[in-house]
């Protein structure tokens, strides 16, 4: 096992947390393009956001003739034991988008969610003139993405004493839920002039709820830089989004995995820029 050439029969399994989200779809697309270019077989499995399903999938991968595994953990802690089993079997593991805590990885390609949360706080504060009331929409409770972005945002907000976060509620990373929750929160807090959503889907739901107030009275900042999110920035309804580069993440992950199979040494961490996208630079990202 190990070594081997990177011919058409080389099988890499990519375990993705969920494909029910455009972000990961783009990540997958980037990975598939890179795999095609490298001439390797890329098997994609989707855990539908369930850690245990993912553990099952990783175990199944280890049983097949898999040469390397790329994992996008549902949860960074929960993936550890399955990843350990893979490394024990000498299968290189590259983590993408989220890290794996407590297991040695061949490499990690990720953007920093905590830093992203801080950047979001800065963008929102700037657009609000560094004063006013803010609503924060949280992702699915208990997910690391929500935790890290929330923590980063809270940390970033400390720099702006004239801004208060008046309400924090979950909208489950979901556009429809964000629409209802934002509507309700605006009812209770009509004075609000800023809103941070932990992903673009929720930000777009909030924009829908705010109607004409989006981008004029209430400034909305999202996270991800999805196609819909970037379009909303062009339109002016979204002030900013913290763009990750999912396709780039996917591409790098495959390239690293192929290198690892060949036995080439790879960097332990490969950071991918998180960029604050606003009207001024949205042109560079538009797809």
């Amino acid at each position, binding site marked *: 096992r190990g070594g081997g050439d990177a011919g058409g029969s080389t099988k890499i399994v990519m375990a993705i947390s969920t*494909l*029910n*989200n*455009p972000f*990961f*779809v783009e990540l997958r697309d980037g990975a598939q393009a890179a795999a095609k270019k490298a001439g390797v077989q890329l098997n994609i499995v989707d855990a539908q956001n369930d850690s245990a399903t993912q553990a099952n999938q990783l175990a199944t991968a280890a049983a097949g003739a898999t040469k390397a595994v790329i994992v996008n953990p549902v949860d960074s802690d929960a993936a550890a034991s399955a990843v350990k089993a893979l490394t024990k079997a000498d299968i290189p593991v590259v983590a993408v988008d989220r890290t794996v805590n407590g297991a040695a990885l061949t490499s990690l390609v990720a953007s920093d969610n905590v830093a992203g949360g801080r950047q979001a706080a800065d963008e929102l504060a700037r657009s609000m003139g560094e004063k006013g009331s803010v609503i924060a929409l*949280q992702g699915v*409770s208990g997910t690391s993405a929500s935790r890290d972005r929330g923590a980063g945002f809270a940390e970033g907000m400390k720099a702006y004493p004239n801004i208060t976060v*008046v*309400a*924090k*509620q*979950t909208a489950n990373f*979901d*556009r*429809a839920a964000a*629409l*209802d*929750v934002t*509507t*309700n*929160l605006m*009812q*209770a807090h009509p004075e609000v002039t800023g809103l941070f959503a932990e992903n673009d*889907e929720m930000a*777009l*739901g909030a924009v*829908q709820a705010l109607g004409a107030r989006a981008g004029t009275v209430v400034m909305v900042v999202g996270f991800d830089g999805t*196609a*819909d999110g970037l379009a909303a920035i062009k339109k002016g309804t979204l002030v900013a989004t913290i763009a990750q580069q999912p396709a780039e993440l996917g591409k790098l992950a495959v390239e690293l995995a192929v290198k690892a199979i060949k036995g080439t040494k790879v960097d332990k961490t490969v950071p991918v820029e998180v960029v604050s996208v606003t009207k001024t630079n949205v042109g560079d990202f538009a797809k």
Partner: protein
Amino acid sequence: MSTTTQPATRRGFDYKKFLANNGALVGLVVLCIALFIATPDFLTGQNLLNIGIQVSTVAVLAFGMTFVIVAGGIDLSVGAVAALSAMVSSWLFVGAGLPGWLALAGGLVAGLLAGVVNGLANAYGKLPSFIATLAMLSVARGLTLVISDGRPIKTPAEVSFLGGNLGPVPMPIVVLLVAALVASFLLNRTVIGRSMYAVGGNAEAARLSGLPVKRILVTVFALAGLFAALAGLLLAGRLDSAQPQAAAGYELDAIAAVVIGGASLSGGLGKISGTFVGALVLVVIRNGLNLLNVTSFWQQVVIGLVIALAVGVDVLRRKTRSS
């Protein structure tokens, strides 16, 4: 003698009967009073409109579910079928280039077909409705992802209109009320509607009385699919886009609304008005907790307790009344 007393009770409003027939209404009223006391934001015209809009999706789904539960089945696929229908409609518009109104109709047909498949699998294929519709949940969600490649697709203007306004009145509320009237009419006034109660109450007795039990079951699931499609289009209209993950898990909300509304999962019981109240209970709880800004972790705890209480009040009321 007894004939003279009959009309007497008829003349006045028979509030006892009304209460007895409208399950969780008392729970809903108590809930509203509590929220009215707790926050001034609750009883405002705008917030009531918001509640009306927010209840529309779940209520429309739950109306369709009422047919199924009355007939003694269950439909786990309504959320997924709602998403599929909206996605089909958006794809017909964006992908296949059909005119918007045809795309809208196509979405409704997709839901209807999914429902028919459920019904055939249950009535003729003899699959328990739980299994047939669980399978459909998976298939419909999968197809939605296949069609959309996991990305949201823009809705045609005709669908967005469903999520917009008709003059000062939000369209979702209009659609909701029309759907309620149609559902209630179907269930109460038509042969097929009344037959659903018989099938749910005792399928064998219904069959031996000559009711076409299988056809009724297919109709029941077809209606659930059609209402799910409408709910899906409503939701997509409000979001201006069909989402691959739209309405995920809404089936539990829909079933809960029907059960809170006084139906029994063993069939033969249920009313559209009850279901409407049940859906309102769920939505008002969430609206209220948002207004009160209960932190999201505790919110789930409180939602659970309030659901139990709202239904509990009803149980208690029936008990004291009967003894």
